[in-house]
């Protein structure tokens, strides 16, 4: 199998790797780079546990080849916290009991963070739509929606 030299910026740090054509981005992150916060929950791109941001856009990293990330920027759950300060979405999930088992949480938070980056004041319907590609089996989504709303309020400029 052909090998490829790639360079991917993950959470602000450049990583070089030699990868097989077929290596999935999720395995590059989890196995090659040992960043296990990105999870795998299915094999048909339905559950969203593996969601990361590729150049700021949520993608399911089980359906992206590592070579497709060459020269691009990836944000994973490990990159949400900055300088020891939790991202508002992380704080929201904690304060509003937006997680139980924690397995869908990284993907759910990244999808939500991307939503808030584009729409600082989403309606409940917009939040539901945005996270509809991320399955959660524990929470019934009610508290996830509250978590996103909490983060939205915290991120809005008037909140200071």
């Amino acid at each position, binding site marked *: 199998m052909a090998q490829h030299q790639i360079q991917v910026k993950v959470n602000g740090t450049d990583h070089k790797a030699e990868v097989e054509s077929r290596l999935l981005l999720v395995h590059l992150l989890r196995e090659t780079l040992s960043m296990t916060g990105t999870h795998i929950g299915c094999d048909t791109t339905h559950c969203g546990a593996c969601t990361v941001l590729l150049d700021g856009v949520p993608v399911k990293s089980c359906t992206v080849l590592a070579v497709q990330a060459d020269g691009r920027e990836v944000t994973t759950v490990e990159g949400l916290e900055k300088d020891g300060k939790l991202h508002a979405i992380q704080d929201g*999930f904690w304060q509003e009991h937006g997680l139980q088992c924690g397995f869908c949480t990284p993907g759910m938070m990244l999808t939500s963070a991307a939503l808030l980056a584009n729409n600082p004041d989403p309606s409940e319907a917009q939040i539901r739509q945005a996270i509809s590609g991320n399955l959660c089996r524990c929470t019934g989504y009610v508290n996830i929606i509250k978590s996103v709303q909490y983060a939205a309020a915290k991120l809005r400029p008037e909140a200071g």
Partner: protein
Amino acid sequence: MEPRTSAAICGMGHSMKRKEDPRFIRGQGHYVDDIKLPGMLHMDIVRSPYAHAKILAIHTEKALAIPGVLAVITGETLKGFNLHWMPTLMSDTQMVLPVEKVMYQAQEVAAVIATDRYIAADGVEAVEVEYEPLPVVVDPKKALEPGAPVLRTDKAGKTDNHIWHWETGDRAATERAFAEADVTVKQDMYIPRIHVASIETCGCVADFNKTDTHLTVYMTTQAPHAIRTVFALVAGHVGLSEEKIRVISPDLGGGFGGKVPVYPGYVIAVAASVVIGKPIKWVEDRMENLQADSFARDYHMTAELAAKKDGTMTALRIKTLADHGYADAAANPSKFPAGLFSICTGSYDIKTAFTEMDAAYTNKPPGGVAYRCSFRVTEAVHAIERVTDVLAAELKMDPAELRFKNFIQADKFPYKSALGWEYDSGNYKAALEKAMERIGYAELRREQAEKRAKGELMGIGICSFTEIVGAGPSKDFDILGIKMFDSAEIRIHPTGKAIARFGTKSQGQGHETTYAQIVAEELGIPAAHIQVEEGDTDTAPYGLGTYASRSTPTAGAAAAVAARKIRDKAKKIAAYLLEVSEDDLEWEPGKFSVKGAPQKSKTIQELAFAAYTNHPPGMEAGLEAVDYYDPPNLTFPFGSYICVVDIDRGTGEVKVRRFLAIDDCGNIINPMIVDGQIHGGLSMGLAPALFEEISYDESGNISGGSFMDYLVPTAMETPNWETGKTVTPCPHHPLGAKGVGESATVGAPPAIVNAVVDALSHLGVRHIEIPMTPEKVWNILREKGVAE
């Protein structure tokens, strides 16, 4: 109930933010697939495309020729160690890997061991298996017909596919009551096969050290201690001895009962590690998870109610047939092969009842385990709550009125049910009244009448369920002979901080927080200072694990009792230090003080320090206790749910407009977590009611075997759950708590079905099977001439 402790202590009743969350929100959870050991190899599994077939040959040469493939393990390999079959928790047997034939589609046929998971998958593709298809049986009714192919030919003398027959209650008295009744109703129901589909699938890392013969298994299990014992019993003959087996259940990405059984993959990985002497990782993918792991339900029921003209229920009779797949691999307490189905008299004072249950083998995966409710309680509640609405329709009574007429009254507890349970406490009337008032029941009925006049379809459904959880008292409850106690061990450190370990295992329920709050409640040590650990059999006390809503009723009780043992010792130390008799001391959370002289006191932290530095002569040093709690009875949480639906006449789509859950789980430890448990439970009630089903065609081919067609609800389909509570403490639990994890999964489906049937009741509809898909509903609308 106002919390008894301050926010700084954070005992019961505080909505403490979860202690486990800081790691999860940073992506620092530690799940089984995150484990990487030096020299670790990967396993992948070859699975059968046939539901029933003879294995003629397994060709492994091409797989073994792939660089990086180290071994292919087959049934013959395991047969060499007599490990090709294993016992189930129900004293049946199931294959680890087949030698002669496969019994369901996706059954494990061989395992490939390789240096990475991609190469292992290549190896799986390269293994060639020759099969000779055999006749397939997928319908349990047909399986029991004379002349049906006998599936378990491995069992000497087995001439049919019948597994067991079980009865409870008084058959003759029930027949008399039905003969004498003014009104009788009868309803067939089928609860389809469904799957827990926790977002993390199952897997393990088996690590056998050939030098010291220790086996460590990191494993997605809800019951690590029981699993260790099972490994020792199953593989003792190949040298695995219980003191050298360590099972570690790391963070679990959901469980819901699906991580109770011992799946063949775990055993093959262990066997491979023992043979090869290297750590072996096996993590199944989603399709394997849905197609081969334990399912739930698959239950055929016929429920009958007898009543007087005024609606007084006089007798209940239910007949059931359970499809267990090719092996009875459920996880029921051993004296209850049909689970706790006999809770089916529900919330009603029905004096006479009889149930008979049978189980059959088919060419489907084994299980019958759980979907956030382990012991057939969901099925029982579906039967009674549906047939109650059928009776209401027959009598032209409002379903709420019929329920009020038959509820067990609050002054009748403890209540002995016709099928033998002693309900601990309840106030069913109060819960339904509260639900009706909050949702505005009378107004909804008016709205429904108006909509009906305009041809719009709106329905209101009620479910007033009684749960039965907290298994269980050792006189009746065991699994493989091991009594169903659970345990807590608490150690107070000299600086007044503590570690508490438990025989249970959280899968998201928040044990690290709630157990800490229980200890805080009893000892006044801040919950923030109490480290909770579970899941490591080398350190935690023995327990049966977390399923069937048993953690709070059993291990939670053990935590309270162990903490009280510690408080008793602390009191002796306080008496010594304050130079008074123990009788002169009084307790408030966090300190003992002298009666009448409150300035003379010792805090629990001071007493902890003294336990190691200045303990009374003649007393052992240290401050710790362990408790193995044997509950005196089960607990009986209950609730009343009301669901409002609108049905689209053009598409048949059911829209849940509102869903209100009033739950009573006794005293509450953490209200935020209880609410979260109910939200999740409701979603896992919505799912089978409207979306999820695993079915098979006549050849035994699965449908619903991936997330492409197994429809786990997203945020788009899930309504905004409304919750509320009544509090009726459990009289026998040390904290008055009952457990809550599964109530909503049990209570939600009949509320939703009752609402949909109610929307169509004026058209003569009396019952709809779940899942109530748009297609199914639209066909009914078309049949009744109201489809648009």
